[in-house]
Each structure stands twice: as C-alpha cells, then as structure tokens.
C-alpha cells in the first residue's frame, strides 16, 4: 500500500467515525422526542461541538493530502466527495441539534395523538434507516445501495408535503395544543432536510465511484440510472 493509499484509508476511517457520531446524535434525538428526555436532548446539544471539530479535522486532512500527494483520477474524486460528504454530515449534525433544542424549549411532552397523526415517528425512523443505508453504500462502495436512497427520500417528501394538512386537522380538533403542533411541524421540516442531505451524499458516492454526475438530475433518472 502506498503512502497515499494509507492516507486515503485514514480519511475514510475518520469520515465513517463522524458518520456514526451523527447517526448517534439523530438516534438520541428520536429517543429524547419519544420520552421527552431533556437530559438526553441537552447531551445532543453539547456533543454537537465534537461533530463540528470532526468536520474541521477531516477538511484539514484532505487539504494536506492534496498538497503533498496531488491525487488524480479516483483518488481525487474520492477526496472531493469526502469534502462534500463532510459538510452534509455536519449539516445533519446541526439538524439533530436543532431538534434537541426544540425539545428543550417545549413546555410539555409531545402527546401520542400528535405523534401518530403526523407520522413523525415513521418519518424519523425512515431518516435513521436512510443514514444507515448511505453509510453502508460508502463503506462497501456500492452505488446500487446509494441509489436506493432516492426512492426512500420520496417517502420523507410525501410526509412533509402532507404535514400542513395533518397539522391543520389536529389543531382544529385540539386548539389547546397549538404550540406543540407548530413545534412538531418544525421538526418534520428538519427531518425532511436530513433526507435532502442524505440524497446529496448518495450523489457524491455515485460520482466518485462511477465518475458520473447525477446531481440536479430528476429523481426518476437518478433511480433508473
């Protein structure tokens, strides 16, 4: 293994570690939501600094590799993809922190009827599975697994699109829970962005493995590609 290969392996390990940290943040966010666990929400907020620090370290390591080794072809594509995946993961970390802060600001637990009515738990579960799936795609360098994300993201988009109507129906029936309903809608919006970040990561994985740019292509073309 050349020195460059070693460095690239190290960067790959670093990004996977960051990925698992972000996964853990999102999982804790779900647990905090279900159990109205403010201590856990606080923990997510505090650990966000580690996600940011990991992002900076990976950026610097990529810069050093560019400077020292002048990588080409697939190695160059890999590092370019890592730089973008890095920022996408950091955004997911921000989203997890944002959800945790909303839980901290809530005065009362989210009741079961609103969680059921809005399908937010289903949506959150799907987000976690999407993040798991793209990590698998990255580790195995498998573009078929990466492409599987696009269809899953459609479910998130569907729940997000329907959220306004579901929340409106809920508020009509329970006007006393307006504040909780609006917070739930905010969380749904953030979860939809997790799907967007995951989609961006999937595009980068496909780019670096196949040297094919599918960013900004219509979804049906991404799935069929």
């Amino acid at each position: 293994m050349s020195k460059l290969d070693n460095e690239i392996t190290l960067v790959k390990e670093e990004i996977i570690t960051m990925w698992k940290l972000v996964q853990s943040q999102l999982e804790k966010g779900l647990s905090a939501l279900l159990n109205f666990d403010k201590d856990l929400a606080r923990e997510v907020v505090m650990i966000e600094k580690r996600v940011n620090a990991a992002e900076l370290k990976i950026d610097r390591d990529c810069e050093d590799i560019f400077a020292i080794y002048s990588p080409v072809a697939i190695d160059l594509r890999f590092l370019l993809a890592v730089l973008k995946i890095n920022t996408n993961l950091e955004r997911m970390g921000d989203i997890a922190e944002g959800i945790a802060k909303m839980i901290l600001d809530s005065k009362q637990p989210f009741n079961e009827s609103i969680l059921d009515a809005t399908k937010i738990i289903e949506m959150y579960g799907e987000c976690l599975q999407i993040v798991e799936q793209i990590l698998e795609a990255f580790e195995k360098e498998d573009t078929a697994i990466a492409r599987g994300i696009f269809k899953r993201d459609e479910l998130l988009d569907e729940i997000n699109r329907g959220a306004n109507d579901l929340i409106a129906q809920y508020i009509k029936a329970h006007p006393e829970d307006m504040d909780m309903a609006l917070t739930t809608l905010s969380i749904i919006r953030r979860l939809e962005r997790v799907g967007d970040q995951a989609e961006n990561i999937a595009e980068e994985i496909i780019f670096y493995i196949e040297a094919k740019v599918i960013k900004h292509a219509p979804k049906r073309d991404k799935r069929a590609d």
Partner: protein
Amino acid sequence: MSQSTTLSKEIIEMWNLVCLQHEKTLTAFLNFDLDLAREVVLIEERVDSSEQLIDTDCAHFLHYRLQTEPSIPFVIHIMKINRQLERIGDIAEAIVTDLLAAEEPFSDELVEEVQIVDLYRKCLRMLEMSLDAFATNDRTIAQVVLSRVEVFQDQSAGVNVALTNFLKLHPEQLKPSLNIFSIVKSLENLVDQIQTLAVELLSFEQKGVPYYTKA
C-alpha cells in the same frame, strides 16, 4: 487574470444570482405574483448549473496544480462557498413552492403579526453583506453578519407565540397561517446557511492575498 480572480469572479456571479432569486421571491410574496414565483423555480436550474461549473473548475485546479496559485485552501474555500450558495438558492425555490401552494394572498394582518416581510428583508441584507465581505475581503462585515444572525434568531423565536395568538382571534386563517409558518422555517434555514457562510469567511485565512482583485 489570475486563477484566483477567475474563481472569485465566478463565485461572485453566483452569489449575485442567488441574491436576485431571493429578491424576486420576496417581491413575489409581497405582490402574490405567482408568475414571478414560477420564474424563480425555472431560474433555479441556472443556479444549479453555476454550481456544477464552479465545482468542475475547482476540481480542475486541484488536478492540474502547475503553479502555486490558486492555493489548495483557497480552492476548497470556494468549493464550500459554492455549496452554501446552491443551498441558499434551493431555499428560494422552497419558499416559492409554499407561495404557489397558497390559495389566495395572505392577509395583511397575518403578514404583519408574523413580521415576515421584515424577517425576509433582514435575510436579504445579511446575504448582500456576506457577498460584500467576500468581495472586499473585509472580516468586520462578516462579523456584523453574525451579530445580525442573532438578532434575526431572537425575532423569529417569537413567531410561534405570534401565530398562536393570531389563530385564537382568526381560526379561519389556519391554512394560510401554516403556509406562512413554513416560509418562516425556510427563512430560519436561510439564516443558518448565511451564518455558515459568514463563519467560513472568517475561518479562511490567506494572509496578504485578497479574494478578488479587479483586472
């Protein structure tokens, strides 16, 4: 013209395009101009194309580093800004999508209660200032942007309460209220992206090398 200046010019063009997208979006909102809203959606493709072009140029500079400039940190810096601007462009599209879904213009009272026009104008100003900070290589402007982000966040934190109070008096305005709430969430996302831009401008240090020099 130096390679750094070429990249800087490209990113400034993209920045201006994204600012214009948001100005049009605000105008579309103020006048309930659905044709203008549709135009924003169509022009989003140009923003996406610009992003890809700049990305390709950056990859080219990283691959063919025959000279010492542009430096690697600078190219990566441009790539990050590029990424942020594309996201900011996406947010304009998200806002007009909510506008297009509205069945009729929003009531003046609702718009006033949530202070959405003021919030959006603040966002536009921060976006323009971040461009100034980059174009003039002035860190103090980026610092001012960050302080304005805090002011925005304090103001937008009051939207839930404002909406709740408004809906108690006007329950028939539930659907448009939720629509406007979605737009406010998009503005919060917009400010998050602008904050990330400002932090990137402040974090990047290239001593003695201006971002942009006129040819």
